[in-house]
């Protein structure tokens, strides 16, 4: 696959030589150094080849700014890194947002954090930061924001018009699950357009990472996604381990898999309750919390915390499993299995529920490539894309599991996919428990101060919401030079304006609920 793409690329762009990179070390197969004037053509080439844009970020090397594009394929693993260098004094690049809709927000993000201006971008407005920033936060040197650039932000003020009215859905609204704000243009009960406004929970984790050592950043990972904290924890730890060449022992890998799956179930359970609550049924919310409580208790006994775990450490775990862990998990598996039929009776088979979710918010198969959405959202469209299978980490390559897919990509499919995923997670836990080896839970001789070798690395895992990517650039010091988080909810939410256009407000709320958004993760 890599060789084929490389050959076809050379055919199309004879002047550029794609370099093959050892995947085990770097997390990507091909490295292409592009120029400003051909990046649009290159993006178009990958779009035609069926690749999606996994990530787009920027790194400030002081002498130059480097835009990093990551492409990947849904069917066969082939990660490609494309870089474009730009002048730090007047940084600019052509937009690729007309090729990949996903680049739309990513370019806005880079614009506000680095000051890179994307030529041809239709809506170059700040995404996270609001009025009053005076310098670009992620630049290594203090670069003030020029006056003309601040004007852009202020121009985004919706005005009342004759043919409809604007409604601020959030930031305080019962069904935005946190502090998402959607500026909606309404015509009666219908939504004419919807524009999410982010940044109400923005904490700049990426900047924090540049100011603390690798160990000190550990708790931050859990704070990004409080529902899938262990998965984010694993995403960070595994990336740094790969970067430093540390190998966690077998037992630790198994325990990581088991606890991550428990965490996935707890996240899905909470989503289940919240989704039905969005549709007006309040009782299932309490039922799922009851089930979820079991998981929290089990994990608390082992990891020490209930929500924002920092259980995984470089080279292993914080401590070994609690002595009751295995029994408690087995008990929980039996309990939850018996509860699914109740949920089926209460919710899945309910006529009102079916009418509210069936054929609402339909995504065709083009969405995942254009928006780079992942997790249950992409699986609902019928593409069996799961990082656990696509790019196995921990011990997922040793465990056989089914990937549930939908057919139409509507809210019902997203709902059913997640319900099935919970059942499959239970199976995975059961299998992993059976094979759980004895032995150390922690690698020996892990240095107190990690100083990874020079270079960059891209590593992904499957968080409960989808593809979580961590990109770290190391400069041989004990502090990351640049850390970039590709979070799943972000690209999932991007599809919302397109899905919500022209729909009833009640349907749009249902669609918003079906994404399983976690706003702190989006805002970072």
């Amino acid at each position, binding site marked *: 696959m890599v060789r084929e793409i490389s050959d076809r690329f050379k055919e199309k762009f004879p002047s550029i030589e794609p370099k093959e990179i050892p995947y085990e070390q770097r997390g990507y197969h091909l490295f292409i150094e592009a120029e400003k004037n051909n990046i649009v053509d290159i993006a178009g080439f990958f779009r035609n080849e069926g690749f999606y844009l996994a990530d787009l970020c920027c790194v400030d090397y002081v002498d130059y700014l480097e835009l990093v594009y990551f492409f990947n394929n849904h069917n066969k693993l082939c990660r490609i890194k494309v870089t474009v260098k730009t002048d730090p004094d007047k940084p600019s690049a052509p937009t690729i947002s007309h090729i990949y809709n996903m680049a739309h927000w990513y370019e806005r993000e880079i614009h506000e954090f680095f000051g890179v201006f994307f030529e041809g971008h239709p809506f170059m407005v700040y995404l996270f930061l609001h009025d009053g920033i005076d310098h670009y936060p992620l630049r290594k040197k203090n670069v003030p924001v020029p006056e003309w650039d601040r004007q852009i932000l202020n121009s985004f003020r919706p005005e009342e018009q004759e043919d409809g009215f604007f409604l601020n859905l959030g930031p305080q609204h019962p069904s935005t699950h946190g502090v998402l704000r959607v500026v909606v243009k309404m015509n009666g*009960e219908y939504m004419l357009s919807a524009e999410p406004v982010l940044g109400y929970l923005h904490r700049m984790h990426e900047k924090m990472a540049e100011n603390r050592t690798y160990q000190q950043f550990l708790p931050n990972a859990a704070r990004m996604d409080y529902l899938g904290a262990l998965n984010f924890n694993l995403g960070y730890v595994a990336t740094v381990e790969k970067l430093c060449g540390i190998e966690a022992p077998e037992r630790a890998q198994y325990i990581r898999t088991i606890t991550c799956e428990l965490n996935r179930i707890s996240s899905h359970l909470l989503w289940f309750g919240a989704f039905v*609550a969005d549709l*007006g049924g309040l009782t299932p919310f309490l039922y799922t919390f*009851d089930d979820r409580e079991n998981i929290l208790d089990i994990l608390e006994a082992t990891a020490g915390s209930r929500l924002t775990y920092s259980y995984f450490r470089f080279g292993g775990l914080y401590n070994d499993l609690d002595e009751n862990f295995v029994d408690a998990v087995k008990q929980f598996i039996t309990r939850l299995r018996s509860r699914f039929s109740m949920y089926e009776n209460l919710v899945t088979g*309910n006529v*009102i529920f079916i009418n*509210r979710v069936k054929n609402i918010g339909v995504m065709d198969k083009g969405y995942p490539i254009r928006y780079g959405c992942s997790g249950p959202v992409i699986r609902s469209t019928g593409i069996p894309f799961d990082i656990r299978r696509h790019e196995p980490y921990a011990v997922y390559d040793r465990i056989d599991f089914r990937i549930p897919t939908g057919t139409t990509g509507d809210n019902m499919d997203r709902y059913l996919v997640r319900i099935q995923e919970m059942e499959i997670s239970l199976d995975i836990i059961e299998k992993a428990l059976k094979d759980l080896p004895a032995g150390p839970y922690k690698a020996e001789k892990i240095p107190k101060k990690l100083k990874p070798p020079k270079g960059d690395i891209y590593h992904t895992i499957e968080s409960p919401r989808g593809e979580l990517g961590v990109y770290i650039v190391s400069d041989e010091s004990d502090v990351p030079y640049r850390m970039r988080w590709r979070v799943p909810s972000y690209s999932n939410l991007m599809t919302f304006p397109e899905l919500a256009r022209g729909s*009833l407000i*009640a349907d749009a*709320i249902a669609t918003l609920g079906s994404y399983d958004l976690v706003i702190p993760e989006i805002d970072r």
Partner: protein
Amino acid sequence: MCDLAAIINIIGKETARLILGLIGVLIVVVVNALVLTWVERKVSGHMQKRIGPKEVGPYGLIQPFADGLKLLGKELLTPANVDKPLYYLAPVIVFIPVLVSFIVIPFDGFLQVKDINVGILVILAFSSLSVLSILIAGWGSNNKYSLIGATRSVAQNIAYEIPLLLSLLPVAFMANSLSLRDIVEVQRQGWFVWRWQFFAFLIYFIAATAETNRTPFDLPEAESELVAGFHTEYSGMRFALFFLAEYTNIFIASAIATTFFLGGYLGPVLPGIVWFFIKTYFLVFVIMWFRWTFPRVRFDQLLNFSWKILIPVAFANLILTGGILKL
């Protein structure tokens, strides 16, 4: 005591009865709302594997009083830019139709403020008025969520008023009277819900759930969509008045169902008033049961359900009943 007798002599027996009745009705309304808040919290608690209130008084029985005191002590916030006269008026007039409906309901053979020979019409006419206060509240609040909630409420009430009326008429046909007491007395031969009017009962109950804005038809205050709908901007006692009115509406809807279909105060052994309240509160419980079980329907589905299913079925039922009676 003799003063009272003198007063009654002066103002006339009928007027005195009305005044006393209204005082009684007010007491029933308040006590009922207190009881229902407690019941709702307990019912929802037990349905959701919780206990509900239990700290204030035995079984949390004093909780509604504590809530009421808290609401009384709260500041009455008036947001800027509201339409002040309308904003103040809405919570007051939400009560008028509710109180009037109580007058004609027979709680027992002798316990009825006034038996009017067009009792059904009084109830139907005044229950449609409650939508007016919702509309005023939504418009006066000058809030987009409130306004959407109010418009939804109007459309919903118009749509469900018709099946409501159509489901009560066959009963009036069969009783050959519009007086509520006569309708109850006719049921000594058997409750109407078992005497060919089962579908009418179902239609009435669904429509009544929609009229009282309860889940699955609680669109005017749909929490996940419209925050709190028409009463988003109300706080303190003004909010409490809407709350009171909602519970009183539920009670009235159930009381009418009891009177028309479940034999009203009729029943063996126990006194009539006890039977009346048992039946009514059972229906109230069912409405609460709906709320804590079902998700919410969508707005267009709600209207379609009324216009395309409930109204044709209710019409068919009405014509059938009329035809059979004529034969």
